């Protein structure tokens, strides 16, 4: 049985349909990346899964429970790391962890939580005095206090410096290695690329693409060739490849880049041109994501 199962999920706020029939599964033990622009219905869906909001229609199961019922048995098995949730400011780090761990039947020891999130040296610091990054790590530690099977991480590394982000990623990888299921919401495509086994992209209340980050929306079947053409030069015929010219230069998209490259380099050699900034690469997850969400925005 999947850890999360969603079928034809719908949610309306008055006349506004925020979520318009969404289906997906999150398998046990995977890191599932949930991507989408602000206002696409992402938060609504996450909060329905977490039990904070009621759905209008559809089926939702989280670890075999209906989250809308708010059952304690479910909340004992999940950990939630939200954005912008406060902590008792006048308690010390270890005290807050002890307090929250005490809510769960099988908590993770406070020392382990501190070690896992790199907060050992801050254990006796009052929460009020923590930096933004340290606060976020405390959020993460609190989400793990009950040793959950399923963890919801909402933008876990926003505001982190690059080093802190890598450390947080390491924590998430360790959780995955422990067999935890992770539902990750993020705006950072490199984060999704680095961590997620599968991602789903939501736009305008619907899922527009789903799959492994490397395969999403045909990423693995397209190659992009970029270069800056000499001024005034007429490009050669590249057959089935699509050619677009934008501010950054020429972009050639091809399923198989070999013939296009052969033609291009031959053409350049023949005319004595150099192909400035020539790159051959798979489209990045970010490229694919931007294209997917732009299409939906254009459809209105």
């Amino acid at each position, binding site marked *: 049985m999947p850890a999360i199962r969603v079928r034809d999920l719908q949610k309306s706020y008055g006349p506004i349909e925020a979520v318009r029939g969404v289906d997906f599964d999150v398998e046990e033990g995977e890191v599932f990346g949930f991507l989408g622009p602000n206002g696409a219905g992402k938060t609504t869906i996450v909060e329905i899964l977490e039990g904070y909001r009621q759905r209008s229609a559809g089926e939702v199961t989280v670890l075999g429970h209906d989250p809308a019922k708010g059952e304690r048995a479910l909340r004992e098995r999940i950990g939630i790391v939200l954005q912008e*949730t406060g902590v008792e400011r006048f308690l010390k780090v270890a005290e807050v962890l002890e307090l929250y761990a005490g809510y769960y039947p099988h908590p993770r020891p406070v020392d382990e939580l501190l070690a896992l999130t790199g907060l050992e040296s801050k254990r006796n610091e009052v929460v009020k005095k923590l930096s933004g990054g340290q606060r976020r790590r405390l959020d993460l530690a609190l989400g793990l206090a009950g040793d959950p099977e399923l963890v919801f991480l909402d933008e876990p590394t926003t505001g982190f410096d690059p080093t802190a982000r890598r450390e947080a990623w390491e924590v998430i990888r360790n959780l995955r290695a422990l067999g935890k299921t992770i539902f990750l919401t993020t705006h950072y495509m490199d984060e999704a690329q680095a961590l997620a086994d599968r991602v789903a992209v939501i736009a305008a209340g619907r899922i527009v693409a789903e799959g492994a980050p490397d395969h999403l929306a045909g990423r693995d079947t397209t190659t992009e060739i970029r270069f800056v053409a000499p001024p005034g030069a007429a490009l050669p015929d590249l057959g089935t490849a699509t050619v677009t010219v934008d501010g950054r230069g020429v972009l050639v998209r091809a399923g198989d880049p070999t013939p296009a490259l052969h033609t291009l380099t031959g053409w350049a050699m023949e005319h004595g041109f150099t192909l400035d900034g020539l790159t051959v690469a798979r489209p990045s997850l970010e490229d694919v994501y931007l294209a997917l969400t732009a299409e939906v925005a254009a459809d209105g």
Partner: protein
Amino acid sequence: MGDLRIAARQLRFEQKAFWRNPAGAVFTFAFPLLFLIIFSTLNSGVRIEERGGITFVTFFVPGILAFGLISACYTNLAIRMTISRDFGILKRVRGTPVPTWAYLGGQVGSSVVITFLLLFLTVGLGVVAFGVDFRTGTVLGLLVTLGLGAACFCALGLAVSGLCPNADAAPAIVNFSIFPLLFVSGIFFPLDNAPGWLTDVAKLFPMQRLADGLQYAFDPRTAGLGFNGGDLLGLLAWTAVGSLLALRLFRWDSLKK
């Protein structure tokens, strides 16, 4: 049993947090104690003829105790819960398996601890500095009235926090809802010569009931155990009303977004 332990731990940490926030802790205690010192000094030697010639301070100690209880249970709790909601603490707590009663029980328990500390301090100060005649015969009535008052005002405090749109507005709303009634409830000065309609209106509210019940237990003329049935019934009714309102109005999530 396990949940009881959760509530006790919540109480313990609420107390820790309370004492680590000097501004909150000092003012919760400083206000009533300062009022007690100032008013009792200004009125030293004054006797209240309408109440059989008891000293002013014997009248004032239970009144200030009522004021302290309302500050700790109603004002303090309502503002604290609104801030916790605004900061997202309540939302975070809602996502954990802690039972509602255990979490709120810890909060209410913390207010009750503060109330009983205030009891010792105000009565102690009254006895030591102003020669209040503390009567042991009515202690039971005093404690029951205090306990019921705490339950009543905590319930109302939880309810009113649901009415506060945000933490910035909470102090103004909470204080406005309480101060006019405090003045007509015979807490700071006796209202034996006030217009009858005014005291009749005041009697409809729990502030007057609490103050009157505590004054009754303190009054040297009181015979028996110090239980004022009418006041206790009034407080009980308001506890029921407050609890129902709290169930309807208390919110875990802030309205912004």
